[in-house]
């Protein structure tokens, strides 16, 4: 059974798809070093950093953009 015209009426339900399993490297944030620039939030392609800079490993694909864009070297990429 599919919906009429395959319309999806549950906005944002791709959250069911936990893309964290794609990851090889994992970002670890040292909150001590964080200067609240929010680069990790702004540039995350997978909305995996919240306002408190907690990383959501359910979705983080481990691209490393956050670590690369962190001006205070607060994020390290470590092997899963």
């Amino acid at each position, binding site marked *: 059974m599919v919906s009429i015209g395959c319309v*999806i009426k549950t906005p944002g339900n*791709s*959250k069911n798809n936990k893309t964290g399993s794609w990851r090889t490297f994992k970002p670890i944030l040292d909150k001590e070093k964080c200067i609240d620039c929010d680069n990790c939030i702004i540039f995350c*392609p*997978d909305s995996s950093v919240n306002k408190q800079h907690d990383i959501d490993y359910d979705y983080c694909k481990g691209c490393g*953009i956050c670590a690369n864009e962190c001006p205070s070297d607060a994020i390290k990429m470590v092997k899963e």
Partner: protein
Amino acid sequence: MDIPDKDLLAPGHRGCAGCGASIAVKLALNTLGKNTVAISATGCLEVMTTPYPETSWEVPFIHVAFENSGAVASGVESALRIQGKDDVNVVAFGGDGGTVDIGLQSLSGAMERGHNMLYICYDNEAYMNTGIQRSGATPYGASTTTSPKGTASFGEDKPKKNMPMIMAAHGIPYVATASIAYPEDYVKKVKKAAETKGPAYIHLQQPCTTGWGFPSEKTIEMGRLAVETGSWILYEIDQGNFEITYRPEERRPVKDYLSTQKRFRHLNEEHIEKIQKYVDAECKELGL
């Protein structure tokens, strides 16, 4: 920059690790807010965000085909306005293929008719969805699967189509270029476009880790290099007034940008020199 509690493009989408398109769309939607209807051309964005029965879109979304997002947006906009929904933002996304090549006519018609909508071209400079074939937006010298380097070829042999100026020639009220590496500048332009009555067009450069051949963590860095070398110039044409919106303190040589990407790695000094000249001329023309 304002950080929302929830992004309007949900995670779980199938974009590559380090995907610039999702950053582009996320920032645009967060700026436009919930009172928005989004249209997308076929391409990476559509395929990665709507594999039935899952969608990443938190706002109403419609996709019809590759070449017609301008026309589909025209229909959506007309339907909303005739119902008195004048405050709903209408935003259409198309990749460079869906915008500068196959979708150009449809977009041109939509712009010329004056629909109150924003069109954002997320330009990753080739057909990435189908495996890196050249488009009209592929830059000079880039090797793609249909403009490959070879014994008799150095890659794409023509410069990029100047799409923002084609849009400006339509006389629409707002045209801008942007880069995902400059989110403040980009978001400001999205806001301005949304406030503009009538059609607005933003041509957004969006580096692609897979298609350009750089490590996934360098998506933003690559965008910055493009702008810092003058290979991509940030400007806006607001009601006909042209203005550069970001000036690099000192323009870096294009080699710094080209040498970090697989698609340009085959170029020799002569090619690079030619590209540098081309970039210099472009910068001079636009007053950078």
